[in-house]
């Protein structure tokens, strides 16, 4: 248990920190133009990778709604009795990972083919039905393209092992390609994010550096009356946190504005293709992650650069 003295010390510490936090915000608002400039640069720098992430997030969710394209066609052997067909169908439908399985008998398949192919008379000439019984299998939906393609391959393998199954046809190639493209975009978002974070670090560092330089006299006085480096540094660290928070909020606003601007046009494109796809903005988790990382960047930038700078400011260089 904490004794009263320790508790008081912690309370006092918190109290002064809170006051410094507010005071450093006050200082920033007294130089609105410079503050806006810094916050704006940080915001734009962070909005870029954030937009890419939101884009790839939307593309992934769109891919999830295109599950129809992942249907497998299971062709049974020719000349099976109806009993054999229904037995095969039963064991196909029992397979794990299947959402629906629809049986198409050879006669129905021929009718369908006749209707769609336009080869009506030619087909009527056929003495016997050349089409086998087919089962159209729709796998259970998944939102991860890579995993979907793996599980579909496995499913196809299992289906081919069922007696009387002649051939399983499916196409996971496009899923793989699409997933690869999405992965590249995400990777680009991360690389860009890392580079621009470094930029944010430098912007904040430079802003703080100028700020420290402008307050050289004040820092000297603080050191003369016994202020430790951490005491002198604190307001600058808080300024860094405010810059980061401000920049993060600007980035979020920009991304939301971008989503809002693209929502209508993209929705119309999707509707023209019969899709219910809707462009979504960053969710709460992503938004909080962005804010947290920009605050962290602000603090870190201020920390690195004030540490470097404060060492060079000692009262000894001036006359007392």
């Amino acid at each position, binding site marked *: 248990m904490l004794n009263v003295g320790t508790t008081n010390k912690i309370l006092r510490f918190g109290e002064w920190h809170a006051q410094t936090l507010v005071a450093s915000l006050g200082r920033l608002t007294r130089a609105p133009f410079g503050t806006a400039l810094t916050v704006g640069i940080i915001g734009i720098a962070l909005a870029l990778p954030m937009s890419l992430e939101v884009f790839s997030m939307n593309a992934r969710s769109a891919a999830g709604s295109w599950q129809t394209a992942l249907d497998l066609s299971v062709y049974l052997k020719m000349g099976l009795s109806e009993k054999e067909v229904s037995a095969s169908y039963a064991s196909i439908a029992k397979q794990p990972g299947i959402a629906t399985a629809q049986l198409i008998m050879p006669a129905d398949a021929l009718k369908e083919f006749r209707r769609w192919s336009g080869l009506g008379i030619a087909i009527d000439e056929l003495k016997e039905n050349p089409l086998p019984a087919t089962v159209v299998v729709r796998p259970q939906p998944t939102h991860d393209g890579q995993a979907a393609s793996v599980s579909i391959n496995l499913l196809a393998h299992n289906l081919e092992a069922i007696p009387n199954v002649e051939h399983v046809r499916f196409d996971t190639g496009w899923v793989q390609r699409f997933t690869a493209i999405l992965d590249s975009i995400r990777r680009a978002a991360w690389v860009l994010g890392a580079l621009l974070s470094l930029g944010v670090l430098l912007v904040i560092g430079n802003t703080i550096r100028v700020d420290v330089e402008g307050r050289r006299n004040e820092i000297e006085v*603080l*050191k*003369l009356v*016994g202020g430790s480096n951490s005491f002198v540094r604190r307001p600058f660290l808080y300024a860094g946190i405010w810059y980061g928070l401000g920049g993060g909020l600007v980035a979020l606003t920009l991304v939301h504005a971008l989503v809002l601007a693209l929502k209508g046009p993209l929705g119309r494109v999707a509707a023209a293709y019969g899709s219910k796809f809707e462009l979504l903005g960053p969710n709460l988790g992503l938004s909080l992650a962005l804010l947290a990382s920009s605050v962290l960047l602000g603090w870190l930038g201020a920390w690195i650069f004030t540490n470097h700078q404060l060492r060079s400011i000692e*009262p000894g260089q001036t006359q007392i």
Partner: protein
Amino acid sequence: MISFNGITKRYPSGREALSDLSLEIAAGEMVFLTGHSGAGKSTALKLIGRIELPTRGQLIVNGQSVGGLRNAMIPAYRRRIGMVFQDHKLLHDRSIWDNVALPLIISGTPRRELDKRVRAALDQVGLLGREGSFPVELSSGEQQRVGIARAVVSKPPILIADEPTGNLDPDLALEVMLLFKRFNEVGVTVVIASHDVHLIDQLGYRRISLTGGRLATSTQSQVHA
């Protein structure tokens, strides 16, 4: 309390400000450092405030060897020494209250005690009621008194002042000196660098005279033991 043992201070420029200086200042004493400008008065005070380090020799303050202080220990060391500067060194964007409270805030004094102690310090220098003013609204003499209030607010055992009356007319200068005298009377060791020989003679404290970084004369106190 303060002891210089063969102190030499040579600046990077090559100028030797103090040469093999040895002197003792007892606890509770009030002394004046005099001499022409360049005689080494300011340098001696800077060494006490650990603003400069001696090139040679040993300086003991408050029982601590100043040369042996690690960087992390300097802030705590300086908190036990009140410093008054000729140019006051006040923070001009902060109120008088904030300026005087600074040493207390730095040492983590509880908030509820702050106001009481800041007002007590301002009362001692005759500026009670000016807490909300800013330094520019005060006369030079008043600013110097704010500087003194800031130096004494955390009750340090040592008070050093470099030409505290340099910019003041004779009446104000005497007033400021009497203020130091009052702090000395309650037990604070006071070291003042000043070239105002007339004023110093009037007060009658021990006078340490420096010439070219060396001890010239050290008189005994005339009116105080």
